[in-house]
């Protein structure tokens, strides 16, 4: 186990270096000059341009800039945004909990609904139920997120007024962040109704962000389950006279879960890095939107720092997924 962990950690180092080089160089390959963008339509004089470039260190050779960036990261300094002039780590730590909270809720939503739906579809293969679930999953998978989000807002927040339109909590409540997770902070605040408000603000974004993973997980569970259900050992289990619940729930499910967990792990990564549309629709103050804005503004330090932090988190999630395999399947216990 320790050897496995050390081995995986050793792989992380070159991966990390690779990500840092890609993050650093790709954004610089894009056309567009961050210094010129600072003044918009207003033309900046060449002298002024040179002066600001020098202030930001962009006049140095690219290799020096890269080494400086890496040196900063080794000391825990991810740099400062060109636009907001604020340290990147500060901004990331303020925004990331919002993304993580939403992604966690969305993945729970997707797993809790997706796995049972997949299992039932597999058991009742070919039935009306199966076709309905898989049809719905296909629709969910192909759903344009922006449209879906707005549709839910217009219906549930606008027409029915059941849920708030956007944000993380009602403006009624105001307390300093402790953990950055609104559900926890609202409980800690001790304010009556705060938790309920935070939870109600999570409903629609959770559904919107969870829709695609839900569809993916349901389909993956169904096909993994179908494969396992046709295995000999399942037939043996049935022949032994075990209850259908034990056959499916214990014998089959455990093996079917291996590819499903891989899928879930990948979906977590996708959600952490790709919640941009959901965050935009629901004015959710997370990292997705922050990163995309930074690309448009060519805010190099934010892009290279933010990407590295996101990559690190995704690598950790994948490591956890690998460890989970062992729990589920003793044959790959490390």
């Amino acid at each position: 186990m320790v050897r496995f962990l050390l081995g995986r950690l050793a792989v992380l180092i070159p991966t990390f270096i690779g990500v840092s080089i890609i993050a650093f160089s790709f954004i610089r390959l894009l056309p567009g000059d961050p210094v010129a963008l600072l003044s918009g339509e207003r033309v900046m004089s060449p002298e002024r341009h040179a002066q600001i470039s020098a202030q930001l260190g962009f006049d140095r050779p690219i290799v020096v800039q890269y080494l400086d960036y890496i040196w900063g990261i080794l000391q825990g300094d991810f740099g400062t945004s060109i636009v907001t002039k604020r340290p990147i780590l500060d901004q990331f730590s303020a925004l990331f909990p919002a993304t993580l909270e939403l992604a966690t809720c969305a993945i729970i939503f997707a797993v809790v609904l997706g796995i049972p739906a997949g299992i039932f579809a597999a058991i009742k293969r070919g039935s009306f139920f199966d076709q309905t679930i898989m049809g719905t999953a296909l629709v969910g998978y192909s759903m344009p997120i922006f449209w879906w989000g707005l549709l839910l807002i217009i219906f549930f927040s606008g027409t029915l007024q059941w849920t708030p339109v956007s944000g993380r909590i009602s403006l009624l409540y105001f307390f300093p962040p402790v953990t950055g997770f609104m559900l926890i902070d609202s409980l800690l605040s001790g304010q009556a109704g705060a938790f309920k408000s935070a939870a109600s603000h999570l409903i629609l974004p959770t559904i919107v962000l969870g829709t695609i993973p839900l569809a993916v997980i349901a389909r993956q569970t169904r096909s993994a389950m179908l494969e396992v259900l046709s295995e000999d050992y399942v037939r043996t289990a049935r022949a032994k006279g075990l209850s259908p619940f034990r056959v499916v729930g214990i014998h089959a499910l455990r093996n079917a879960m291996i590819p499903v967990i891989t899928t879930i792990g990948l979906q977590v990564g996708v959600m952490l890095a790709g919640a941009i549309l959901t965050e935009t629709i629901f004015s959710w103050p997370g990292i997705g939107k922050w990163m995309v804005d930074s690309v448009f503004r060519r805010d190099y330090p934010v892009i290279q720092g933010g990407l590295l932090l996101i990559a690190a988190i995704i690598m950790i999630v994948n490591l956890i997924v690998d460890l989970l395999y062992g729990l589920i399947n003793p044959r790959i216990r490390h």
Partner: protein
Amino acid sequence: MLKKMTFAAALAAATILSGAANAKTFVYCSEGSPEGFDPGLYTAGTTFDAAAHTVYNRLLEFKKGTTETEPGLAESYEVSDDGLEYTFKLRPGVKFQTTDFFTPTRELNADDVIFSFDRQMNSENPWNQYVAGGSWEYFAGMGFPELIESIEKVDDMTVKFKLKRKEAPFLANVAMPFASVMSKEYADKLEADGNMAQLNQKPLGTGPFQFVAYQQDAAIRYKAHPDYWNGKQPIDDLVFAITTDAAVRYQKLQAGECHLMPYPNAADVEAMKANDDLKVMEQPGLNVAYLAFNTTQAPFDKVEVRKALSMAVNKQAIVDAVFQGAATPAKNPIPPTMWSYNESIQDDPYDPEAAKKMLEDAGVTDLSMKIWAMPVARPYMLNARRAAELMQEDFAKIGVDVEIVSYEWAEYLDRSKAKDRDGAVMLGWTGDNGDPDNFLDTLLGCDAVGGNNRAQWCNQEYDDLVTKAKETTDQAERTKLYEEAQVIFKREAPWVTIDHSLSVVPMRKEVTGFVQSPLGDFAFDGVDLAE
């Protein structure tokens, strides 16, 4: 303190929902996050709304709803006869706000004004580089480093600016957000605590609202400054609920989650007007969209060719297609809300037949040209590609073949400056300070060729007029000079003036006292909620 604040906010917000009386909270669904809270460091309107118009004041302010200035923190000023010295007499008894860790011991004085400008112009000032990579973009952009000779304290309540040359727009410039007056005492305290970056995160000024907290990308909270020199605000709390998507802002407005929103989708405006809970204010924005020929290159060096192309463009069709009516066709390079706008000018009529003949008379046949279309939506041009396509069709009618080109935004801005650039560039401008100089000289003066002057147009007669206007302090005389300059502009047609977009502001019916700013600012002093 914190508990008290929380309670106040909760109480205030409870009031919005219940509509009860004692504390009033006004919620503004703002379109984006501020870059920071020091207006000197930034150039975005979003930042100015959040920092400059709430927390701070300036020596002069723009009179509500106009582009004219009026006394702000300076109760009066004098200009020397040679036009080189501006002496501002400060308003007595102006109190600064407080924070949880700082209570001012004195009122506004000359030291605060000098500090506010010196930090931007003097690289020796410890505040010149107090945030990493900080630059004073507007201070530089408005030419202050080359303009200001010195700023002197005459006495505690009097400050004198000495200029290196005559510059009438100076007065409008000191009303701009970058010229906001900070508290030197607060800055000294932050410096002593080794906490200088806080100036950009916890602002403290003399303005109508006091900063309470910023939850990144989510909300900014303010409360009314209790000792505001111009009287306490009718609302108690002000919240900016950051909502980047226009459709979602509209939903929030309808649901009563906010009282006022900026920048609606053009397609939603009709429905907003029809909604009984809402009202909509409209005004031409302080902007212009234009198509600039390169007047140094044949055949665009000929006035007749430029005129003919100008007559071929159906501006109304562009306004209808791109803005769904939320814009007006432009005839002058400055918008109609700006003083000195020349009403008497006749726009080139849309007349493809006459245009075609004019081209033939000029000996131009089989003309092929490029039209540059911006890759981004700007307030003055929501969809440049669509507008370019319409112009392409218009030009085809007079036998001119058009190729539409575009580049990434920063690259577009950069390449379009080049003196030897080919084709006509679509671009626009949003005014900074309401002074006609900011359009007429900045965009069309000879000095701006190779820079902001995308038409590369240098007309001596025109340039003499705008230069003279810049050096004249009498506004009536300046008006005359600018009106004349617009006549020459129209005669020479270096641009096809396309449109001035409308600034549309939807709000809840109960909102009172909001005045639309021609400068495009959103300021909430004087705003109230009817019971």
